[in-house]
């Protein structure tokens, strides 16, 4: 059994989600190969070779794979997949974009966002916004799977010494091209990888008031998230959204401020170890999942919290 992991990378560095995906591969068992596809990704390949437990790195360095357009990367992965029992990618926007295209090319069903490995062919995954957990078995010769990063503890980024092998295959479908990118700038930890997340909702009232949460986050070394209501109201950009349609986080501590706790928001954070809710409405559903709830006006309690931490 040999497992192919599609590396998630950006700006010449391995993304943390790749380490969680390798951890899932290790649970399945067998040799783990990592595919790095992109343009000028030599350094990423070197970094991938150092990940603990990786036996080989396949490096597909080609202009066609720049920005990892799925029309070009999926045929590459599908071509390489024939030698593997499993193909895994992180359930990031990139992994979700590419892998179903690979599965369809291989004529197999994909299993999305697994949270645990029961055996080499059986996996658990959440459905209905996390309100049910399905155990799914795959009889496919090549099992195509995306991995929810928060379901698996990351493997060490250092300690491995895999060989790097160049892949010459160049697939350029010529059907799509990259135009531009607008990345949200942040000095705080990445939302999905942060140990502490502070999130604000409609109760923040406006974007300016998020400065209170940024101050609290800086004090705690936390990332700042938001509910859909806060994003739709224009308080913060949409890449900060936590929930079924945004990012899935499972930090040690999740502090929900002015968030009512709709099903779709809970889907993105209810696996957090400790949940704190600060809300002035004591009937808010968020209190049903919170370990510690404080019924109070956030504009009084958050500054007090900053002072007390």
């Amino acid at each position, binding site marked *: 059994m040999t497992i192919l992991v599609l590396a998630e990378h950006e700006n010449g560095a391995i993304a943390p989600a790749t380490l969680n995906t390798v951890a899932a591969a290790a649970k399945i068992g067998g040799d783990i190969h990592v595919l790095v596809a992109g343009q000028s990704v030599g350094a990423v390949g070197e970094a991938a070779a150092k990940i603990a437990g990786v036996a080989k790195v396949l490096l597909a360095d080609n202009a066609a794979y720049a920005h990892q357009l799925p*029309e070009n990367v*999926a045929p590459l992965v599908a071509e390489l997949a024939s030698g593997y029992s499993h193909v895994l990618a992180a359930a990031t926007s990139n992994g979700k974009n590419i*892998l179903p295209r690979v599965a369809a090319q291989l004529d197999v069903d*994909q299993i999305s966002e697994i949270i645990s490995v029961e055996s080499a062919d059986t996996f658990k995954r959440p459905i209905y916004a996390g309100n049910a957990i399905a155990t799914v078995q795959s*009889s496919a010769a090549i099992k195509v799977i995306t991995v929810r990063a928060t379901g698996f503890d990351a493997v060490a980024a250092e300690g491995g010494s895999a060989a790097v092998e160049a892949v010459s295959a160049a697939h350029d479908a010529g059907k799509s091209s990259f135009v531009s990118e*607008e*990345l949200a700038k942040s000095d705080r930890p990445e939302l999905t990888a942060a140990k502490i997340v502070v999130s604000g909702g409609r109760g923040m009232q406006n974007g300016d008031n998020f400065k209170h949460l940024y101050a609290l986050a800086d004090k705690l070394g936390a990332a700042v998230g938001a509910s859909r209501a806060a994003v739709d109201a224009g308080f913060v950009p*949409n890449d900060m959204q936590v929930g079924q349609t945004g990012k899935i986080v499972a930090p040690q501590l999740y502090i929900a401020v002015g968030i009512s706790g709709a099903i779709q928001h809970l889907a993105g954070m209810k696996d957090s170890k400790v949940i704190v809710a600060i809300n002035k409405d004591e009937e808010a559903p968020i209190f049903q999942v919170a*370990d*510690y709830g404080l019924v109070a006006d956030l504009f009084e309690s958050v500054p007090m919290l900053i002072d007390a931490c």
Partner: protein
Amino acid sequence: MKVLVAVKRVVDYNVKVRVKADNSGVDLANVKMSMNPFCEIAVEEAVRLKELSVKEGRVATEIVVVSIGPTTAQEQLRTALALGADRAILVESADELTSLAVAKLLKAVVDKEQPQLVILGKQAIDSDNNQTGQMLAALSGYAQGTFASKVEVSGDSVNVTREIDAGAQTVSLKLPAIVTTDLRLNEPRYASLPNIMKAKKKPLEVLTPDALGVSTSSTNKTLKVEAPAARSAGIKVKSVAELVEKLKNEAKVI
């Protein structure tokens, strides 16, 4: 150009689902069903493209809406017709189909209808798979613009702005192409009563997987569906000081 929109009948997003006692699935008896919210956005985008007049004429000239599912999915197709779709196709199947099977059926419909643009939701809120659009793109050999927050058709290509983890990305796709909608693409309209009445007269064709020559067999089998582990009851603290004390000494997270 012709736009094909795929819609799915799912449990209404406000319903808190219950897992069946025998762990065979989720109890959907007597539960309110609706059009998947992402599919509503897909229908709305198609209708806006049709409404949008450009120099060389209208961007979208015909909207065909398709659903794959039980007979009752006709309700969701009628809703789409009331929102502005011109005609509907139901591929009737009582079985619960996987994303790959649905993608194969949609591919057969695409072959038949030859649309220039196919719009789907990015995921259904029941299976949470986020696969069908990408799989349809692979099977038909078309380019894909997933998680779209902006769609601009110009000539023989479409520019799609996509929501990605770190922000937004714009790609240019050659038509025909597949687009899957993200929540921020638009705000779907409501159907008016006169339009609901008119929708009853619009054509609705019923097909079967057999008639389309598509096998819906699957390599995936659901063994069990369980309720997620319940969180142990929390406590309400009285003050910020008590909260900080608990976080430091009891939970030991700060």
